[in-house]
């Protein structure tokens, strides 16, 4: 976990639990601290409790147990409209019976702001998302991407310090989504707002966030900056969920100098970095990223254990080659290599030897 001292904590979840039916916990013992200005993404499969957390923060759900604090004060008993938190909803929730300008003006009106001041702020917010010419239109007359921008502008127009976003890009096509990811991050950093972003798209989480909290089964499995999350997953769920991953199962034989010797179920021996294992005899699931696997003998480090592999399939993907191998009885072992002039193109049926650096191969929980 990132070490954020409680002094500058802006958003805090302390031992928060949530149950809807009194029998099952949707959120189990959630602890989270966010400093001001952070862009935090809650990532996880559906039903993992991430949206529930967001709704508790927004005030639409009450925590069954625990404390949620905003800027040092507990907000458990503050109704949503007094929390001053901006929110972007999954399907934008633009009011269909109002024009774009009226939509943006609404949060200012309920704050009893004067007309001229309102108009000025609406105009500024529309310009901020480059939608200045659309004030008179109705939401239904805008494309998905345009509606998305308006929803963003509406959440920001009353200048909240905290903005929540609930899968805001889910309805957009891939290209537009990538463009909006970029725009949202830039806007958030420029305005210095704190953002809690919920998504089930891991690429989105990795590209946008300062930190990502991976949710599963009502708990945060790991909370870390994107690079740490990808390169040093703390358990096999995170390793599986973030990015592509190869898994081999085995038993720890010995642990020496921070390197674990793992005997795979087929008898082969490999070197790993022990993460969730501490003593010989433990079952483990070994995780290795496809792009960290090396098969060019000249580049393999001396003395490392290697495995025999058979090439099953070679897929040309333009920028990379994707090769499926059979390794230690696993038919789904994938390696990725950059399409470089000197790169060897493997042929199906070819027998090769593969290896990796021990620190890239992580021995996780079984």
């Amino acid at each position, binding site marked *: 976990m990132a070490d954020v001292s409680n002094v500058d904590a802006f958003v805090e979840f302390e031992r928060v639990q949530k149950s809807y039916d009194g029998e099952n916990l949707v959120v189990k013992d959630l602890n989270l601290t966010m400093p001001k200005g952070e862009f935090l993404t809650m990532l996880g499969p559906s039903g993992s409790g991430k949206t529930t957390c967001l709704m508790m923060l*927004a*005030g*639409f759900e009450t925590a069954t147990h625990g404390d949620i604090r905003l800027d040092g004060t507990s907000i458990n008993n503050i*109704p*949503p*409209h*007094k*929390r*001053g*938190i*901006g*929110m972007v*909803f*999954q*399907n934008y*929730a633009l*009011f*269909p*019976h109002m024009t774009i300008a009226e939509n943006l003006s*609404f*949060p200012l009106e*309920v*704050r009893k702001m004067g007309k001229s001041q309102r108009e000025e702020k609406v105009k500024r917010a529309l310009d901020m998302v480059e939608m200045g010419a659309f004030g008179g239109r109705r939401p239904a007359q805008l494309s998905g991407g345009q509606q998305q921008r308006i929803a963003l502008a*509406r*959440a920001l127009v*009353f200048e909240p310090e905290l903005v*929540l976003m609930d899968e805001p890009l889910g309805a957009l096509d891939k290209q537009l989504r990538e463009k909006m990811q970029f725009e949202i991050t830039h806007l958030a950093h420029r305005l210095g707002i704190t953002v809690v972003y919920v998504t089930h798209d891991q690429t989105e989480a990795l590209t946008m966030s300062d930190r990502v909290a991976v949710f599963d089964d009502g708990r945060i499995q790991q909370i870390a900056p994107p690079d740490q999350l990808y390169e040093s997953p703390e358990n096999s769920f995170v390793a599986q969920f973030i990015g592509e991953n190869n898994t081999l199962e085995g038993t720890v034989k010995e642990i020496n100098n921070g390197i674990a010797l793992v005997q795979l179920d087929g008898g082969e021996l490999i070197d790993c970095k022990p993460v969730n294992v501490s003593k010989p005899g433990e079952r483990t699931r070994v995780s290795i990223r496809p792009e960290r696997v090396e098969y060019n003998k000249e580049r393999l480090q001396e003395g490392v254990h290697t495995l025999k592999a058979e090439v099953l399939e070679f897929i040309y993907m333009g920028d990379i080659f994707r090769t499926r191998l059979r390794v230690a009885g696993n038919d789904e072992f994938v390696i990725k290599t950059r399409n470089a002039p000197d790169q060897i193109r493997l042929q199906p049926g070819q027998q090769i030897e593969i290896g990796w650096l021990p620190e890239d191969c992580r021995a996780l929980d079984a």
Partner: protein
Amino acid sequence: MTDTAATGGPVLAADGTPLKKSLARALRIQKLRALALIAPLLIFVLVSFIIPIGTMLSRSVANDLVADTLPLTVVALESWDAESGELPDEPVYAAFVTDMVAAIAVKRHTRLGTRLNYEQTGMSSLFRKSGRKIKKLDPAADAPFKDTLIGINKDWGDVETWKVLKTHSVRITNGYFLNAIDMRRTPEGAQAQPEDKQILVTLFQRTLIMSLVITASCIVLGYPVAWILANLPARTANVLMILVLLPFWTSLLVRTSAWKVMLQQQGVINEVLVWVGLVADDARLVMINNQFGTIVAMTHILLPFMILPMYSVMQTIKPTYVRAAKSMGATDWTAFWRIYFPLSVPGIGAGSILVFILAIGYYITPEIVGGTKGVFISNRIAYHISSSLNWGLAAALGAILLAVVLILYWAYDKIVGIDNVKLG
């Protein structure tokens, strides 16, 4: 392939015929098939709905009876000046006797009497009584007739009798419509009915006002119910929906009679109030056979027609709208009034149109619980259809009712917009 830009002519299909023509041919079969599919319904609607309404509406202006029964008299009366205050001359009387003898032979004179009795009481018996004596006259031999007729009945010597005959001898008349709005057709033009016969305009006003009150009470009672139904989990909502629909499955007559049991002076409500001591035994509330009874019973009966469209519209309002409003700082009330309510207006509109149009033409319930003060215009129409047999007036009243509904519909379209009406 022929390119328009290249040739400048019309686009041609592959076989050389113009594309438009070949498209029309291709679509014609589809259209014919579609027509064949709706034909049974179309014929049914035509026979059972459009034609009856059309003939009914034409009855509101048709007035062939006088001109058909007394053809010679009508022609002879043309030269008579009704304003002169003098009786018509002998030729009119002669023509009248000739016409009457022919009419009596086929017994049409009593129908004519009934028709003219709508305009002036006494005409029916005048025609019936005179008929027996005129039958014995011979149009060829017994001239002159003026004094004979006046001798048979002195009303034939009254200018008013002839005035009525002349005024209502036109084949297309506005008389029924004038009657429907408490006026009458006279030789001097349209005039107000005598004070004691003016009841229809009041009845129209009462029908409109009470229908509005019923619609309003349906909105007030139905809105919260629809809201609860729309916001409950689907399973619970379905169970409660049965309670809303239950009245639909009960006979209208039973429901209305039930209200009679509830509301009458010896009824459930009064008995309870007396028992509790809120009302003295000799001062029981009068809640039935008046407007109150009609409004209560009809609100209850029409409520599902308000709840259902409201419910189906409210179901489509996503809860995120209200959440979004609250996240932007709106209180519960503001979020409801500025966001939820405007989005639910199409449902209110659809329900109101439905309830109002049903209410304005309602018959059974006002008939049973309305007494004299709580009846609607439709009860008057029914009276003219089945009791007084003045179908022309009934048709005119019906036509006015139809026009009122259409005008209100049009006004609603102008103000709210009909595409804002959603039934689901």
